[in-house]
């Protein structure tokens, strides 16, 4: 199993551009999450999903959109990128609904200039 795979690993965007961060897991996990981590800070939950077709907002959803059309994929869309969105983005998945073990991807480092 590859686990949780995120692409791209690095990206530089100009202000106002849009892009999609891809996240794929091959563990048949129902629960998937997007977090962002600013330099020297903790993780902030952006969006999460409990299954295909079901998503919900986390702590910091503004400026982002998600979709979950399949169990495997959970892309994160950034619309009109702003410097405040410069961060490292982590995707995670879980098989256990009771706050179970989260499996994280390697992260996508995004810089908005």
């Amino acid at each position, binding site marked *: 199993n590859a686990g949780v795979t995120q692409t791209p690993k690095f990206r530089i965007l100009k202000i106002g551009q849009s892009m999609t961060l891809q996240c794929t897991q091959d563990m048949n996990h129902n629960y998937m999450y997007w977090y962002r981590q600013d330099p020297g800070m903790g*993780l902030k939950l952006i969006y999460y999903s409990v299954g295909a077709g079901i998503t919900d907002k986390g702590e910091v959803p503004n400026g982002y959109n998600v979709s979950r059309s399949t169990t495997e994929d959970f892309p994160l869309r950034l619309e009109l990128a702003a410097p405040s969105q410069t961060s490292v983005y982590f995707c995670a998945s879980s098989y256990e609904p009771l*706050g179970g073990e989260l499996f994280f991807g390697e992260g996508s480092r995004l810089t908005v200039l």
Partner: protein
Amino acid sequence: LAKTTQPISMDSYEGQEVNITCSHNNIATNDYITWYQQFPSQGPRFIIQGYKTKVKNEVASLFIPADRKSSTLSLPRVSLSDTAVYYCLVGGPAGTALIFGKGTTLSVSS
């Protein structure tokens, strides 16, 4: 959503036992307590999870008192490679958001 509070940082020396306490006063009945370790430029990695009393695995122990309003991660005989950020996460049933606290930066010196 249960909010967690941890010390910002801790220092230790190799070979010592390290105990990191997390406060979660408004933990819900269905919430589990999970601890993660994060190295720079990597995603967090699962260490241990528990619901009540004591849980132990090959790398750590987790102590949870009867009221479950706090928990303590115990790392026996730390080494330099244990230098990392440790997060306490309190999570509940399906469909709930899993919110991380600020974490504790553990620095281990020789």
